[in-house]
């Protein structure tokens, strides 16, 4: 079914509804299609549905401003249902059948890895908004989330500082998949480089959706009783966090004794927990809803009006989509076309304001500059920013702390290579 509305006559309120009609073939000449590849059902729907909504809002707003290159934008929403192979199929559908100009999508690293070959083969653009483990830089992907040096490393630095409690003993706890494993490998190498002994690092992995945390929390307590200040660095992902935090609260692990710093817990995740007993536990992100800033206040107001929910929270990956989307619009305007090759070349160097008062820049390695912030959980489920970097930190695709990736460098502008080896002077 397609709705015939004059080009200028698209009512703002109708835009959302019209976007859902993916079969609007009559529009192919008049609109620029934007693919949205986020799970709306299955395990990851809990996090990804929000990102779909924020994209719809951004596209809606851009259209109110008159679209781009004189054309309206049209969102094409598909549901990959938290099913990794389905991500690849849906990406193919978006590019070949819907002929989208770019795709905003994915959350888990495994879903990103699954769509990579499709984007390479069909030469399209993916904006990936979530903090990830690094060790990757592809020509067709723009990483608007944090690389490890924009989240994990500064968080550990903070905990080692006087304000963070001068932590000497570390528990690296994570869910058993690629992101936590790689991040913990980077962190372990970094901590050992800082003189932390092997017996002062405890690494623990749990399955997805782990719900019985009694043993692990009591192990952490035991590990923390060695007379040295101990902290937990948590890369626990998704549903497992709620029972983990509930168990921490019940067993009385206070942030003043053993602080837990999380990389995957934001405002959305805390919405399901009574945070009274968790006050002071930390999270490291590049954006917090509580950041006081006119741009942020405006964004929150728009978002709550768009979702018609005055309590709806915002979070870091949403901000990444805001920055990525604005960069993409600017790149199209600069290139004067939506042709992927031209847009990919135009993107590095593009700057767009982020919501924390700075201006983020797309780098030649397809990562962006971001501020790093450490927030402490408040009783109302929001975060107090207790520390932040003075300048924006450029994202580093290849970790400087791992053998094998130390010498690699990504540069899609000069060297046209995602993994240029500075030692051998060759690509790959």
């Amino acid at each position, binding site marked *: 079914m397609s709705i015939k509305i004059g080009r200028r006559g698209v009512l703002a309120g109708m835009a959302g509804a019209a976007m859902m009609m993916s079969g609007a073939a009559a529009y192919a000449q008049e609109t620029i299609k934007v693919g949205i590849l986020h799970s709306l059902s299955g*395990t990851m729907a*809990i996090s990804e549905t929000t990102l779909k909504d924020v994209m719809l809002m951004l596209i809606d707003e851009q259209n109110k401003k008159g679209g781009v290159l004189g054309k309206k934008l049209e969102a094409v929403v598909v549901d990959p249902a938290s099913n990794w192979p389905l991500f690849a199929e849906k990406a193919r559908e978006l590019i070949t059948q819907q002929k989208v100009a770019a795709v905003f999508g994915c959350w888990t690293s495994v879903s990103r890895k699954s769509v990579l070959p499709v984007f390479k083969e069909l030469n399209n653009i993916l904006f990936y908004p979530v903090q990830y483990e690094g060790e990757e830089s592809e020509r067709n992907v723009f990483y608007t989330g944090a690389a490890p040096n924009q989240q994990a490393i500064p968080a550990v630095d903070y905990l080692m500082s006087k304000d963070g409690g001068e932590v000497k003993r570390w528990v690296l706890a994570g869910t058993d998949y690629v992101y936590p494993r790689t991040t913990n490998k980077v962190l372990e190498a970094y901590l050992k480089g800082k003189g932390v002994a092997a017996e002062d690092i405890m690494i623990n992995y749990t399955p997805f*959706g782990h719900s019985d945390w009694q043993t*692990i929390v*009591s192990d952490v307590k*035991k590990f923390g009783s060695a007379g040295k200040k101990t902290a937990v660095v948590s890369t626990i992902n998704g549903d497992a966090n709620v029972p983990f935090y*509930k168990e921490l609260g019940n*067993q009385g692990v206070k942030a003043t004794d053993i602080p837990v710093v999380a990389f995957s817990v934001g405002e959305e*995740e805390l919405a399901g927990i009574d945070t009274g007993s968790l006050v002071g536990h930390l999270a490291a992100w590049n954006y917090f809803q509580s950041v006081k800033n006119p741009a942020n206040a405006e964004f929150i107001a728009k978002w709550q009006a768009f979702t018609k929910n005055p309590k709806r929270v915002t979070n870091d990956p949403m901000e990444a989509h805001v920055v990525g989307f604005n960069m993409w619009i600017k790149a199209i305007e600069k290139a004067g076309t939506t042709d992927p090759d031209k847009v990919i070349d135009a993107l590095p160097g593009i700057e767009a304001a982020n919501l924390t008062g700075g201006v983020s820049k797309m780098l030649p390695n397809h990562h962006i500059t971001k501020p790093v912030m450490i927030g402490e959980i408040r009783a109302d489920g929001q975060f107090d920013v207790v520390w932040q970097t003075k300048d924006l930190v450029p994202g580093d695709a290849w970790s400087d702390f791992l053998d094998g990736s130390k010498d690699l460098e990504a540069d899609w502008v000069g060297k046209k290579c995602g993994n240029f080896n500075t030692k051998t002077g060759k690509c790959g």
Partner: protein
Amino acid sequence: MPRFSLLCALLLACLTILAPQARADVSAPLARLALDEFAETAKAVDEIAASGDAQAQAILEALGSARLFVDPATKAVYRRAANGDAFAAATGARVPAPPAGLQTVRVNNRLRGAIQNAVGALTLMSPDPARRRAAAESVFRSRDASVLAPLEAALKAEKDPGVAQLFAQARAAVLVAAPDSSNEVRIDAIGVLRARADINAIAALRSLPAKADASAKSLADDAVAAIEQRLRLLSHAQNVWYGLSLGSVLLLAAIGLAITFGVMGVINMAHGEMVMLGAYATFMVQEAFRAYAPAWFDFSLPVALPLAFLFTGLVGVAIERGIIRFLYGRPLETLLATWGVSLILQQAVRTVFGPTNREVGAPSYMAGAFDFFGLSVTWGRMWIIVFTLVVFVSLLLALKHTSLGLHMRAVTQNRRMAAAMGIRTPWVDAMTFGLGSGLAGVAGVALSQIDNVSPNLGQSYIIDSFMVVVFGGVGNLWGALVSAFALGVANKFLEPLAGAVLAKILILVLLILFIQKRPRGLFALKGRAVEA
């Protein structure tokens, strides 16, 4: 004349030095707090703690619990009581109408720790024994030598033997850690800590300064070794307890399935979603309580139980009448159909309630932990074990002593004979399925206390539930009980050795091997009933 002026100057100097001590004043530190910078706040905390001002304790407590505010316009500092009443921080006078736009004075973990220590030192003489206990614990952890004098005074004045013991332990911790304690004092203190024999005592013993006497060092090492030995033994008990707790959760999740799958033979893949619906029913009940009767919030769970049972029971009856009754005897189709039902239910809940987690609060009796001979037992887990056993026993009684139970057993043992005796077997089927689903809903009420309330809640329990029923022996409730606890305890003993991921895999491998040996599970039903 010069001599006189010198005297004057000296006098003045003395006065200025003495003045802060003589007339305790918190206005200077309050001005620091108004800046809302961590470094200034840290200084202010020390100054307020040292001021001896009558308001000091109230100010520090308000600061620690984010109830201290500053008016950005006038830089005046206010604090709020837990009930929301506002007071001027400096004088403690009640302010009926505080100015609008007050901003919270922020604290971080380091400050929170400092505040905790300061409040601990200030509340050592509190009339409330619970506060004195908390004060003793906080001194025990901070091992702050400056608190020693007030601590000893408090110890002398203490009447309550329990609190006195805590004070003595806190004093010992301070003395062990203090760099200038004499050797005899240290050795005594090490003895006190050794008698305390818990994880915090180890931390205190390890804080012995490096330059301590060799005799004290070896005593401390002995004490740590002895406590660790005791804790090792205790950890086995702890594992058993954790195992029982995990087992009770497994049993609770599986008990409904033991009816629908075990007794009726329906492979019900939507069982997990019944648990999920029960959890959402709890959420709805709690929302109602929050809106209409917040004071009665502790009663939300008892109210949610029958409602969740009825609601999920009705959904179960609807599923049985609408789908499953057409598929009896066709296990594969039942499996696929119920799986479809589970997806529909999940997505329906996602559409209605949204994909994000919903907050289900813990009533006061479910929160926190208590100490049981050195075992840390969380209240929530303990009530879940008790609750599981109550549900199990009531189910056994219901099956044995009610007419529905009698009909149920008759139908499952010999459907045609039961029908010939005048039992309406379709009605019994619907009721049995409704009972199983209702039990799953009741499980959802309990699981909402420890897990996410999200549309995915059920998925994480469905495999475990089938595991429990298959291992225990299909059609046998006692089997489900034994198998749930056995799996729970085995899992918890394997977890410290092999890690959570490997433990789960090992359990599955062991289960498969066991099923190879005894295909009918632990407690196989014997006789003709099996063939029917």
